[in-house]
């Protein structure tokens, strides 16, 4: 291997880049630099304009005191982070449960053959019902309805019940995402797998699902982020999560800074998750795709 002008490893076939290539690459570099400069400048200008418009507005001093008070932020941050632990625990446990239940529902809906009719009908009825039912109503029913039954051995812990309600609703959404993925796998793949002697279960497991799941990673992530934010709704039953913790502080002196802090904390949680999945999917694509510009 030798180094050529572009800095990549070149094959050792005595290749020397032509003047034409060197000029072409110089032009491309210049063009990239110019585009970057234009983008940076327009970003700066937009940012500066926004900044000026907001800070010059007549109500800015009071708004800043109410929403961006450093003192309140310092006070709220530990409490909000404490509450966030609950959100995270709920996200991990519910997320896992949602993925498993959603996948099972999706598979049940795609089963063929008359034997599976009851299963198929049940799964369909489930997704129809829980996708239509507003999450907040589902939560109220479960969190206050189940303890009202006074069943022996059934928990009355609002966090557990709230988590269950989240799983019920989100599994219905996620099931539909998985089903779309499963149906997007071309029938010829199924035919190829079955012709190799794989059973329908094996076909699903080794051939269809791996392709289906890969395709639905972005929409799944969408639902998981949404779930992460909705974990805050368990606070309606009295559990203290990040949003509720912020609300308690904010309610004392009508300063909204804790809300801003809680909001930023959620955003900060979501971004690494999104970038992480982007990176993984990009890596999977690179391994399989052929080259080319379009």
């Amino acid at each position, binding site marked *: 291997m030798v180094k050529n002008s572009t800095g990549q490893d070149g094959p050792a076939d005595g290749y020397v880049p032509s003047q*034409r290539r060197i000029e072409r690459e110089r032009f*491309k570099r210049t*063009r990239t630099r110019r585009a970057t400069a234009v983008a940076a400048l327009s970003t700066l200008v937009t940012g500066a304009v926004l900044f000026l418009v907001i800070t010059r507005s007549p109500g800015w001093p009071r708004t800043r005191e109410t929403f961006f008070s450093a003192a309140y932020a310092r006070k709220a941050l530990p409490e909000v982070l404490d509450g966030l632990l609950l959100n995270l625990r709920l996200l991990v446990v519910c997320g896992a449960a949602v993925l498993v239940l959603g996948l099972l529902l999706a598979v049940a809906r795609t089963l063929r053959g008359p034997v599976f009719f009851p299963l198929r009908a049940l799964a369909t009825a489930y997704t129809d019902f829980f996708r239509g039912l507003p999450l907040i109503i589902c939560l109220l029913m479960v969190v206050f309805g189940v303890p009202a039954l006074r069943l022996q051995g059934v928990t009355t812990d609002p966090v557990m019940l709230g988590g269950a309600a989240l799983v019920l609703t989100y599994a219905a959404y996620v099931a539909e995402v998985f089903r779309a993925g499963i149906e997007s796998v071309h029938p010829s793949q199924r035919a190829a797998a079955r012709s190799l002697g794989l059973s329908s279960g094996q076909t699903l497991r080794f051939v269809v699902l791996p392709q289906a799941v890969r395709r639905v990673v972005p929409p799944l992530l969408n639902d998981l982020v949404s779930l992460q934010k909705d974990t805050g709704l368990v606070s309606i039953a009295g559990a203290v999560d990040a949003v509720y913790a912020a609300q308690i502080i904010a309610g004392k002196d009508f300063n909204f800074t804790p809300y801003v802090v809680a909001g930023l904390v959620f955003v900060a949680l979501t971004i690494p998750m999104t970038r992480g999945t982007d990176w993984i999917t990009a890596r999977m694509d690179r391994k399989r795709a052929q080259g080319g510009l379009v």
Partner: protein
Amino acid sequence: MSTTDDTPRPADGTAVRPAPDGGPVLRLESVRKTYGRGTVVLRDVDLAVPPHTVTALIGASGSGKSTLLRCANLLEEIDDGAIFLDGAEITDPRADVDAVRRRIGVVFQAYNLFPHMTVLDNITLAPRRVHGVPRAEAEARAHELLERLGLGGRAGEYPDRLSGGQQQRVAIVRALAGRPRLLLLDEITAALDPELVGEVLGVVRDLKEEGMTMVIATHEMGFAREVADQVCFLDGGVVVERGTPEEVFGEPRQDRTRQFLRRIIQAGRL
């Protein structure tokens, strides 16, 4: 499928346009292309395609035929060298890629028809959206081309309902609908059943009669010999031998060409 209208008939005469200066339509100059880290796919390839001629690219799989066509249509970026269309360099980073592609028609091995559109919509998409031809005019021309290629009754069908040979002829019509200056055909019969190969090659033969300039990557040696004005044998990304079909197939000068042709003859393909 109906058999009455499946006979290929002469295609569209309006595809022919005079060369502006009599120079080659397509010219490759010292083209180099590598994939990833150091796999050289094309090495110092020179090629000139004069107007109204057919150039056949032959060679084993992986010899660089398809890559050469993809580079000529700017679907791949070349590492070094230059490609000219009607004398203008198209590999210049300043060149308008879409404008270049508007003047080149491509037919792919796997047809690449859009499965969610009818045959008619497949054909009129580019004329209407890219060339700004009014719907009525685009559809009239599409019908006329379909008729000539023996696909008269198929305009409203979806591609998946057609046979491979019919799909490939639709793909050819789609490429012709933009009135290209040059047609690139990338192993267009490789995915077809033997009995369907003839109908597609017949269309290509008719296009040659009408003076269409074409570059064809093919494994059909008999066809290359019959239809080509120039044959290029590629091996390992290098043009090993080029000449008239008589020269390359009749009295090959290079050892590698002879070996390749011997293998082809053993496989019963010549």
